[in-house]
């Protein structure tokens, strides 16, 4: 079981970090940084305004960056017949999806949290507020990763699945955004707990929802 887990995780990480020909983990991070860089240009050099709204911008950018790798989370492996081969070996879809959620989170959660440091500097967030942004991202990105894998599994094989996937993630991620970004407001710290709770709910249902979607796609 352990060797199997490591083999699967290693492959998933290689796929997501290096990405083959589809652009790896760098792409969402660069997108995130690009948004953070453009934001002060658009809003203007008003430091108090930037500091006040910058946290929300970081959250929106993180959400949109999480959508970028959606089309290579599940579909390529379905097309290659890998999921069928795993099924023949008695490896359950739920297990495979769990490993993939972990790999997907590792490939964009921690890099995004690192990228949030320069992004925060660009909009003049520091100290206590930066701490809240980082803790919020730590609580929210696992939920975003789970949501991404679930939606990728549901839309895999559909025509225009990638675009549809992006549209599906956005409304479902609203609670994460509301509680995560809301924690930055004065007295909103309890939002972190709710953000984390919603992440846990998504982590708990994703293996079953995505596993069922993959099986249903076979017949």
């Amino acid at each position, binding site marked *: 079981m352990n060797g199997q887990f490591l083999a699967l995780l290693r*492959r998933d990480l290689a796929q997501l970090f290096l990405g083959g020909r589809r652009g790896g983990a760098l792409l969402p991070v660069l997108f995130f940084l690009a948004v953070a860089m453009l934001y002060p240009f658009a809003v203007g050099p008003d430091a108090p305004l930037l500091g006040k709204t910058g946290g929300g911008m970081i959250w929106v950018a993180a959400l949109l960056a999480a959508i970028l790798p959606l089309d290579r989370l599940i579909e390529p492996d379905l097309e290659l017949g890998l999921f*069928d*081969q795993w099924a*023949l*070996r008695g*490896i359950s879809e739920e297990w495979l999806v769990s490993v993939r959620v972990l790999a997907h989170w590792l490939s964009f959660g921690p890099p995004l949290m690192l990228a949030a440091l320069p992004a925060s500097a660009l909009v003049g967030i520091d100290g206590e507020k930066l701490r809240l942004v980082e803790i919020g991202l730590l609580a929210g990105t696992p939920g975003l990763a789970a949501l991404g894998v679930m939606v990728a599994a549901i839309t895999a094989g559909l025509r225009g699945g990638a675009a549809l996937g992006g549209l599906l993630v956005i409304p479902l991620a609203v609670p994460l955004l509301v509680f995560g970004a809301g924690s930055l407001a004065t007295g909103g710290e309890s939002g972190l707990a709710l953000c984390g709770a919603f992440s846990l709910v998504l982590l708990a249902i994703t293996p079953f929802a995505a596993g069922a979607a993959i099986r249903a796609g076979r*017949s």
Partner: protein
Amino acid sequence: MQECRIAARDLACRRGDRLLFAGLSFALQAGQALQLVGSNGIGKSSLIRILAGLMPAYAGTVEVVGALGLVDERPALDPHLPLGQALAFWQRLDGPHDNRAADLGLAELMDVPVRYLSTGQKKRAALARLIGQAAPVWLLDEPLNGLDTRGAALVMDMVAGHCREGGIAVIASHQPFDVADKQQIELKDFVR
């Protein structure tokens, strides 16, 4: 080799509104091979997927004892990885096994990314993956597609050897497949 057998009773397959075949039964014991023949679209691949448990049968039951190995039109190897690494991934899942890739003429291709391989070379690679799996029941969907005469002979030898060692092979192919002690099912006999 692990104990193995397949029994199918009264199988029917439906794709969309069309009933492809019905009332299909057969049983295979260790060492036996079965070839499914029939024209395109008659349900050979669907039957293979039903036997593999990847698709539900519309009616009837399938009983399989022993691990299943499947080769179909998708090699299930990462296209951007060199062949050696792509096969090594399956080896990590399936456990170590004596490397017979050389028999399949793949030894020189180990450094070549899978996406640069020809159809026939990909088929050979998929067969190498199948051998590494050491499963007693082989389900082969059009195993000769894209292979040259030498490759085809090699695959038939491989299947014959597998059956001699006590394995089972189910081959869906419209091409003649030369293996001793082989049953044959014409799917058109089961079209209603």
